[in-house]
């Protein structure tokens, strides 16, 4: 290099015109270029190494479309797989008048809301003027229609109008309307559960939806990158209930008819499989339509058969007898002298018809529903022992059940119960203690299943696809000897055959039953004229399995008894139950039937 410089100087000295390009300048140029490259290298090192992570996460954020879970919920089916609650796709249509344009229009051209309304109106089935009125002067974000069927939305989409948006989402539908509202509850407009199983089993009913982030290209094409195996997986589990829609419908219809006929406040009908505690029906009147929940009073959104207490009255007598038998205070042959009335610690106690029945056996006590007889029977038991038995029946504990909101019953404290003879006396005919219809059903289940206290329940579990769950096995704590429960059932059968429960008699079948007509109390005082009638039935007596309990609250008028108000409902339910469960008759019915 230095040589060239020397040479150039020499040449410059000799021939002025010759000016060779100096090597140093050439090198300078390349050094400039290389330093620019070096600068770029530093810039790229900054971008890719230092700021790289931040830039990449920014890019991923822009490229990834986060799909928020739609909040799909599982289908609920009955014991036969019939749909009780499903999610259906529904579409909401939004209008943005500032973008209104036909396909093929000039990009700058805009159509008036009036023109658009006229195109949409026939498909939506509303008048064009109401549509354009709704859009009014709004520029954007007008909800034109909601809850559209996807097929209707597809017809709107086919119009290809710019400025019309479609929002798809699931909507909870209850195909059986009000039939299961008391059990299922409902979702509000924000799809948040408000009552029933929807609320109590919310986390189980919510579908497992993964938060999915799909990478997309700039034009929206989804990219396969980062979508691992299983990320598109959606389980198809359904919640299966133990309820039977057919039986539920019969129960609901009959109950409603009777409640209306007697102008009653409310009613409930429950059917339980006593072997395992599965409820086949849990009907309630009045009820509401969960598809239009907003039209009903919030007071209806609870199931009173599970959440409200009442004094069971005579339907509790068989339970008492079972306790006394088990405690050996009574035997199957014990007799009572029923004088029609007696006085305990100054309180008079009468039979409901004020009749004296004389010396009668325990079957007769049940048949005539003798209060005096019951008091005398239970007096053979030490009151402390009696209380301990009631305690053992978990009267004051909320039953172990999956029914939402189940409450515990009320039992006086041991001290109160034993201090005053009136307490065990009233308890012996089912007053002075309070429980829910569900609890009473559980206690009667004990008589049906040979002495076990089962958990009444309505869910069987989650199953995939159309598979159905098996019913659960025998369960529950053994409290009574089977001989005891059989003896009480035999007495209850006589109530239907010869006593107050004859309404429930069905030729060919052995059915046990007991009526109940109890006074209602509020704040410790009985309300005059306010009665709660009930009927409980067991069938078939030779192989007891089902317990039916019907409770009608505050029926009005003359002849208000369990036998007149509640028993007819029970009978209709039993008839349906016999058919649905295909229970064969226990004995020959009539000659006429035989020959056919």
């Amino acid at each position, binding site marked *: 290099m230095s040589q060239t410089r020397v040479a150039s100087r020499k040449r410059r000295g000799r021939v002025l015109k010759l000016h060779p*390009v100096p090597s140093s300048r050439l090198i300078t140029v*390349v050094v400039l*270029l290389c330093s620019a490259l070096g600068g*770029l290298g530093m810039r790229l090192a900054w971008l890719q190494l230092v700021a790289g992570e931040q830039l990449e996460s920014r890019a991923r954020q822009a490229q990834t479309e986060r799909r928020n879970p739609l909040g799909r919920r599982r289908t609920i089916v009955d014991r036969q797989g019939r749909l009780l609650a499903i999610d259906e796709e529904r579409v909401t249509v939004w209008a943005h008048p500032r973008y209104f344009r036909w396909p093929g229009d000039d990009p700058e051209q805009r159509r008036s809301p009036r023109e658009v309304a006229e195109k949409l109106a026939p498909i939506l089935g509303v008048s064009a003027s109401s549509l354009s009125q709704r859009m009014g002067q709004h520029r954007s974000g007008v909800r034109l229609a909601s809850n559209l069927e996807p097929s209707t939305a597809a017809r709107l989409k086919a119009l290809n109008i710019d400025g019309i948006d479609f929002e798809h989402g699931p909507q909870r539908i209850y195909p059986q309307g009000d039939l299961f509202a008391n059990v299922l509850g409902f979702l509000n407009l924000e799809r948040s559960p408000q009552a029933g199983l929807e609320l109590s089993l919310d986390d189980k009913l919510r579908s497992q939806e993964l938060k999915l982030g799909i990478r997309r290209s*700039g034009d929206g094409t989804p990219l396969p990158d980062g979508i691992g195996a299983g990320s598109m997986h959606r389980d198809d589990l359904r919640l299966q209930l133990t309820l039977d829609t057919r039986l539920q419908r019969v129960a609901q219809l009959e109950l409603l008819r009777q409640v209306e006929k007697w102008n009653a406040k409310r009613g409930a009908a429950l059917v339980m499989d006593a072997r395992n505690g599965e409820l086949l029906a849990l009907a309630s009147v009045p009820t509401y339509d969960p598809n239009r929940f907003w039209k009903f009073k919030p007071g209806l959104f609870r199931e009173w058969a599970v959440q409200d207490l009442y004094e069971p009255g005579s339907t509790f007598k068989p339970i008492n007898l079972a306790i006394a038998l088990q405690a050996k205070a009574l035997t199957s042959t014990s007799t009572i002298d029923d004088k029609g009335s007696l006085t305990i610690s100054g309180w008079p106690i009468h039979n409901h018809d004020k009749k004296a029945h004389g010396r009668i056996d325990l079957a007769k006590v049940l048949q005539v529903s003798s209060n005096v007889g019951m008091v005398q029977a239970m007096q053979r038991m030490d009151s402390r022992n009696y209380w301990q038995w009631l305690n053992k029946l978990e009267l004051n504990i909320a039953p172990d059940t999956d029914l939402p909101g189940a409450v515990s019953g009320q039992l006086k404290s041991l001290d109160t119960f034993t201090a005053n003879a009136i307490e065990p006396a009233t308890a012996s005919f089912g007053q002075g203690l309070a429980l829910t219809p569900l609890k009473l059903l559980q206690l009667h289940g004990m008589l049906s299943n040979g002495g076990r206290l089962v958990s009444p329940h309505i869910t069987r579990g989650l199953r995939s696809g159309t598979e159905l769950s098996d019913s659960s096995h025998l369960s529950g704590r053994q409290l009574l000897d089977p001989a005891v429960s059989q003896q009480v059932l035999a007495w209850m059968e006589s109530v239907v055959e010869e006593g107050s429960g004859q309404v429930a008699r069905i030729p060919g079948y052995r059915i046990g039953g007991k009526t109940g007509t109890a006074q209602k109390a509020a704040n410790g005082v009985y309300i005059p004229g306010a009665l709660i009638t009930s009927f409980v039935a067991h069938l078939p007596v030779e192989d007891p399995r089902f317990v039916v309990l019907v409770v009608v609250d505050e029926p009005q008028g003359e002849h208000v008894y369990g036998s007149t108000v509640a028993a007819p409902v029970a009978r209709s339910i039993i008839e349906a139950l016999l058919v649905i469960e295909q229970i064969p008759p226990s004995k020959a019915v009539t000659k006429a039937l035989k020959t056919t």
Partner: protein
Amino acid sequence: MARGTQGLLTLPINLWPAETRLLLGLIATWSVFGLLVLASASWWVSQQELGDALYTIKRQLIWMLAGWALFSVVVRTPLKRWLQLAAPALLIGTGLVALTLIIGTTVNGASRWLVLGPIQLQPTELIKPFIVLQGAVLFSQWRRLALDQRVLWMAILGGIILLILKQPNLSTASLTGLVLWLMALASGLPLHWLVGIAGLGLTAGTTSILINDYQRLRVTSFLDPWQDPLGNGYQLVQSLLAIGSGGLSGSGYGLSTQKLMYLPIQTTDFIFAVYAEEFGFVGSVVVLLFLAVFALMGLRVALRSRGNQLRLVAIGCTTILVGQSIMNIAVASGAMPTTGLPLPLVSYGGNSLLASLFIAGLLVRCSLESADPLSLSSRPSRS
């Protein structure tokens, strides 16, 4: 001279000097590299917009073949002839640039194209080799030129740059100015002259930026692209996201996400961003090192060339190829305001490809002529 040409023409490649063969190898590598990068950058957009993923790369391949044909013609033609052609070709080119202002096809607000049947001509690209050649002619004998000659040629070159600015095409104008300035620097012109010219150029550039709204927007958005990432800063932001996403080792060939319609003009101005996303910092460094090696090879050719014109052609060719690459990468990485310059031999575009291979051919020719003893008799500097 005729014999010399003859001799070179018949000289088989394996008898070429090692330096020339190495240079040829670099250019060939660059070309293949360019095709591979373009194939990755273009297929998605071609598929989505034209229904044929290979649409772009097929056309580029044809242009590449044409370019290499031109390259071999350039290599086989004595530099002296090109130097003689430079002035008239430059004048014709200037005329064509002027013509684009009148009947040019306007793309994105700039009239850069002349449509000749199926072929679109971009005169600003095609005059690039002749600017280098004419620059060499002028600066090699600058001190021997009369004042009027100097003024005339300064006016002509300045006029060309102004015409290109008028299109408006700030990027090519500044590249042209920069290359001419660097050639003048290389030729040994007094530094105070060069500083004066540079000041003039900067003033012109600043004025242009102040006058033209679109250029001013680009400059302001370049300074802080995140201020308006969906508007004026969009292109640069997308490019930075692409380059940044590359990280150290990149996402892998073909796996850029930003090229999928996020990054605009991803087959030309921002093709480096696609490459940087796919090959990461390692890939970026490889490209920068390659350019440095190429620049050093160009320097070596220039230093070994006997004769001012040869030296200036060699350094000019090196400068325009490497300089244009630097500007393109600088734009993509946000080191320079967004201007539309193709990455030589990589970006999609026939005109750019032809011009780049023409220039590369000139460089190889310089290397040949400086090494081959037969060509010594036809040293351009003596003519």
